């Protein structure tokens, strides 16, 4: 079995008000050295070994439903599931 970790983030050009709000809180707490904070999503998929080409599969799922390419970027890592 394979474990796929997918990280979804808002595209760089898009303002992330949630991230800015959290960054503001950190600054108030004394962590003013944080220059930017962006919030994204993490998805974890366990995929059977019998699956077809895993890169094709993951890219297809990401582009069809898991991300909205108008506003989001994604990257993923494939590893062995425990």
């Amino acid at each position, binding site marked *: 079995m394979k474990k796929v970790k997918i990280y979804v983030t*808002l595209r760089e050009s*898009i*303002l992330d*008000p*949630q991230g800015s*709000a959290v960054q503001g809180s950190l600054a108030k707490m004394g962590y003013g050295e944080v220059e930017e904070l962006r919030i994204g999503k993490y998805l974890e998929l366990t995929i059977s070994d019998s699956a077809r080409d895993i890169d094709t599969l993951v890219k297809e799922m990401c582009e069809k*439903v*898991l991300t*909205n390419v*108008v*506003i989001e970027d994604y990257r993923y890592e494939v590893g062995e599931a425990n």
Partner: protein
Amino acid sequence: MKFAVLVFPGSNCDIDMYHAIKDELGEEVEYVWHTETDLSSFDGILVPGGFSYGDYLRCGAMANQSNIMAEVKKAADAGKPVLGVCNGFQILTEAGLLPGALLRNKNLKFMCRTIQLKVENNNTLFTNQYEQGQVINIPIAHGEGNYYCDEETLQKLKDNNQIVFTYSGENPNGSLADIAGIINERGNVLGMMPHPERAVDALVGGADGLAVFKSIVKQWRENHVNN
């Protein structure tokens, strides 16, 4: 004219939509559950607001995978009027029937109040009962209504007069170019964040939204009723 009001798990403006059509307009209307696979007997499709599939993953993303959405695309291709309000607008952008996407409100707050909208284009099948430039009062109720598209798309929307409603005076959610509602290039699919179906009776605060539905019916009758 016969309308379909789509119902997804988590839709919550479906009853308002049904009421607007049946009680205020006196037209035919039926609820259609998202697992259905045929919309051919309907003349107009209404995609209501709410929180389809709990807004999991992204607003409208799961609803777009429902059986019924393939039928909505067919109806849109056939030129039938398709109106998506709030979550319905989010679903139509996820489906690619309208360009762009809806982001979290700039101030991160869920907002529920009446705002002012300007009719930017009254030459559509959804707005022919308004005056050009008319300012109307319509309620909003959303947390993710901040319309976004890339520059090229925005230029196209402007060039084709596809921006139908803008926020007037105050932009509540930070949307690009104050956009509150857009139409597709062909002119038969409208998505808007404010809720015209919640403004159809003066008794409950105003009836400025009724003209959206009256416009649809007027245009349909002109095209379909034999003289």
